[in-house]
């Protein structure tokens, strides 16, 4: 099964906001823990190693950007 990168939410802003709000009011360390748990929950929901592998590859390509962002903080 292919990794879907088309826009799947009717209102993508609602999904982004839900994630933002999940992180409101917790510490940065807790945010990292929340993200880890969230990734595992979603990976299990997808239930497809091929898709998970492609998702990891796509996300990993962004690490360079992520490091740049860290430096700006």
């Amino acid at each position, binding site marked *: 099964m292919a990794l879907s*990168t*088309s826009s799947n939410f009717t209102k*993508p*802003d609602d*999904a*982004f906001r839900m994630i*933002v709000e999940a992180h409101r009011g917790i510490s940065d360390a807790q945010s990292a823990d929340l993200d880890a748990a969230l990734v595992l929950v979603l990976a299990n929901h997808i239930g497809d190693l091929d898709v998970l592998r492609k998702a990891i590859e796509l996300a990993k390509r*962004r690490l360079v950007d*992520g490091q740049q962002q860290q430096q*700006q903080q």
Partner: protein
Amino acid sequence: MQQHTTQFGYRRHPDQDRANAAEHPVVVVGAGPVGLSLAIDLAQRGQPVVLLDDADRIGEGSRAICFSKRSLEYWDRLGVAERMTDKGVVWSVGRIFHSASQLYQFNLLPEQGHKMPAFINLQQFYAEAYLVERAAQLPEIDLRWRNRVSALEQRNDHAVLTIETPDGPYRLAARYVVACDGARSSLRSLVGADFKGQVFEDQFLIADVKMTAEFPTERWFWFDPPFHAGRSALLHRQPDDIWRIDLQLSPDADPAVEKLPENVRPRLARMLGHNDFEFVWISLYKFQCRRMEKFIHDRVIFAGDAAHQVSPFGARGANSGLEDAENLAWKLARVLAGTSPENLFESYHVERSAAADENIRESTRSTDFMAPASRQEARLRQAVLSLARDTEFGKRMINGGRLSVPSVYDTPLSTADGETWRGGPPPGASMLDAPLTGRDGGSTFLTEAFVKAGTRFALLEFANGAAASVPAGVGVIRIGDDGFGDPSGLLGARYDAAPGTGYLLRPDGYVAARFRHLTHGAIVAALARATAINEGL
């Protein structure tokens, strides 16, 4: 710095010489875009209106510049849209950049067959000047400059205002007062109302500069541009070779220092790639997203910035105020004429406070995306921006402002669909324009046919034999047979129509009800519901 100002004269009114307060059906406070539009709408409905403003001039800075299709359709009904679109610059395309590269572009009106464009940019002082000129043509409007409301007494069936003028104070009685007196509304203070919401710490600098430039007439938004590292920027064109530039500043930036032209100039020179521009207006903003809990306080009804405020990203300030005016005008006219009970106003609060919540939600999200509140939110945003380079879902999640579209009202005035629809505006949604041909074969639009039908309740009827019988006072827009033609088929498609389909439109152009097969009884019942005269049915 250049200032565009228009001066209006104070004139003493005979009401000021009376021993007792003169009585008027409705007094509108605040002659900005919202108060002026409301007054014009009321006047066109035959309703006399007193319009007060504490100043005697308009035009300090361009302020609101983006006027939406919905606002233009409203102004078209008020007879001023042509002047606005002739002077304004028309746009529909926006581009989003991250660093130096474009991530995404969108078109807010990708389809043909609408009389009005997606947006025009026009300095608020032009819009106000055209509205003032239109108001002067209407004898029902009594516009009084340098009349400042200083006190309010609420009575059972009217309110009494104390008004300060250069000749001293006088008093006016009104059955209804509409407060369109802006974000710092004095009437809001006088009724002692709450005005709560979120304050944003980030500051934004707004500069209008005059220059001749090759940029296209589009909305350009940058995240983290090379000329303004780590922050966001927005570029918009206005008439007269004026360009609006918004720059996000850090929360701890010193406003007095940031505002100095010598500090703004180098930043803009880097953005524009040259130094050949002059400043017209520089202003510093912090935003609040907030609204009054209740838009109606006894005899005082609040509209526009007086009732609700949003961040400017999304053009939801002035446009939502104009939607308040169009929503309220026909209801006020009906209640004052005695054709609807006062509880029709409850629908104004229901519909427009929900719209305010939606505008606050959308503009808060945009502002939060531009100014992330925590490291985690900054990471999430960075992930979206980087994923947007080659994924569709990433592009769709970038939030550089979601531009104003009319709300769909969940309202007691609507009659719920009783049949199956595959498209078309549902009850509570605003009408969609479409091209038509008149009986003479000439080109027109549905929005124009709506005005010709009287800008009142109107039945949009897709002919199926004999015309439907409508109650007195309801206009008819008949499509097919002996009525308007729909040669492009766009109207039929936009309304999911078949012969016999009918839409009952409200005087503000919203859908009250729709039917696959029109019956007189169903139209009467829907009309009663939409005018709040079906209580107890």
